[in-house]
């Protein structure tokens, strides 16, 4: 399962990749929501898709 960081230094560094400055007050909820996304990612990525599926996102109804 993807390990999502909860330490403030790592969260700051990740936000800085997008030129975003985090407020300390946002840290607890941010860590929570990032963790939830990690759980969803684990759920999706653990499903064995066949390799021949085109990785480029393309969707039509």
């Amino acid at each position: 399962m993807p390990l999502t960081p909860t330490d403030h230094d790592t969260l700051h560094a990740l936000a800085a990749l997008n030129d975003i400055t985090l407020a300390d007050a946002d840290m607890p909820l941010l860590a929570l929501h990032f963790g939830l996304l990690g759980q969803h990612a684990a759920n999706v990525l653990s499903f064995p898709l066949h390799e021949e599926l085109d990785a480029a996102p393309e969707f039509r109804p």
Partner: protein
Amino acid sequence: MTSIPAVSAQQQMLAETSAAKAGLPQREASLAEKLLTGTVTGMVSALSEGRVSATALTQAALQRIDDHDGLYNSFTEVTTVRALAEAADIDRRRAGGETLPPLAGVPYAVKNLFDVAGLVTLAGSRINRDLPPASEDALLVRAMQAQGAVLLGALNMDEYAYGFTTENSHYGPARNPHDPSRSAGGSSGGCGTAVAAGMVPLTLGSDTNGSVRVPSSMCGIFGLKPTYGALSLQGMFPFVHSLDHAGIFARSSHDLALSYALLHRASHDQTRSRVDSGTLSTDISRLRIAMAGGHFTQGNPEANAAVQRIATALGTQQMVELPQAARARSAAYLITASEGAQQHLQRLRTRAADFDPMTRPRLLAGSMMPAAWYIGAQRFRRWFQSEVAKLFQDVDIILAPSTPCSAQKIGQDSMTINGVEMPTRPNIGMFTQPISFIGLPVVSVPVQQAGGMPIGVQIIAPPWREDMALRVAAYLESSAVVAAPVVTRVEAAC
């Protein structure tokens, strides 16, 4: 905390029009008030026969908004001047003997993420207040005007559509007319409330992960989320490009069909829809209908009971399983988080503090997602789409709850679903997300529960077969299994 712009100006206009209204025959004013709480079909009939004027109907809507919306908080802007001008134009043209378009004189309103000329497109936010007013209407608003409909205003929503409850920290919550201490659902909560409370018979909203179907369920009305791409999004403030749909709310399936047919034709040079009018057959004898099992049975007993009630009325007990539906929901979550964050990246850099405190951390988290998570979700989407398409070889319609429970209390942070306690807000869309994830058309039909809150059931069809879903809804409506009566005002300990 409620903020309705230009209240004093609106009240002044209302006072002036009330004086004018005094000149309307009392009989016409009374008829307008009665028609307003009926269907679009009924209004169109009365308008075309000259029994009521567009101005009288608009006056009645404005009065009803003034009487009730202080409690329900569905409107963020009431477009009084525009509405009366549009209504007067319809009446003038009708008096001149002109043949008028199908929605001539029908009042409606739109979620405040649709561009309305002269209004700032708030999209439920404080940040957007600093934008200039829209220079022109969104395409669907232009289309409604071209069909003669009368715009009453812009409606409350979750900030940037990122929510299922319309508990908006900038403009206040939209309250459920069935119980104003409860949520109207979201993110198109104002749309649901305005229709359920009889202020307008039609509203336009949006649905990315459930934002038409959830308020429809919570407010006990009909909602249509058509096939992905069926309705133009031009002039609609975006959220998630891969998942955004425009949708319609109404108090009858025929009203949904009529408005959808008109708006779909306006959206495309060549129609792909088989819905061409508000006249719906109720012949469902050849439709193969099944209930969704597995993930979709994990709601509360009231949700399962609502689906069972619909299934019994349709004469089916067949079950079908959408494979990996829970994973589909997770994938929708990832796509939403990533694309939603990208949409707001610049605002997160410069105006982070001005976001709703419930929206900001979700957007920040999405901005940090590795690309592998997003791409994995899109690849899974193609697989899921393919697998569900196979199911539609054997069934025509799939039934599922719209929500796992009926409307929760405003401010309620956790809820118990199927014996499991979980956060309220992220989980209300657990049954809508897997369906909008692959763009299937859905009609949410309202099941009224005696002594309780209403709850919705999704009538799910294959792509571009809105006609089948609407036909099933019409059958259920004609059989009195589903209905959307206007809710009278209920005071609540808010």
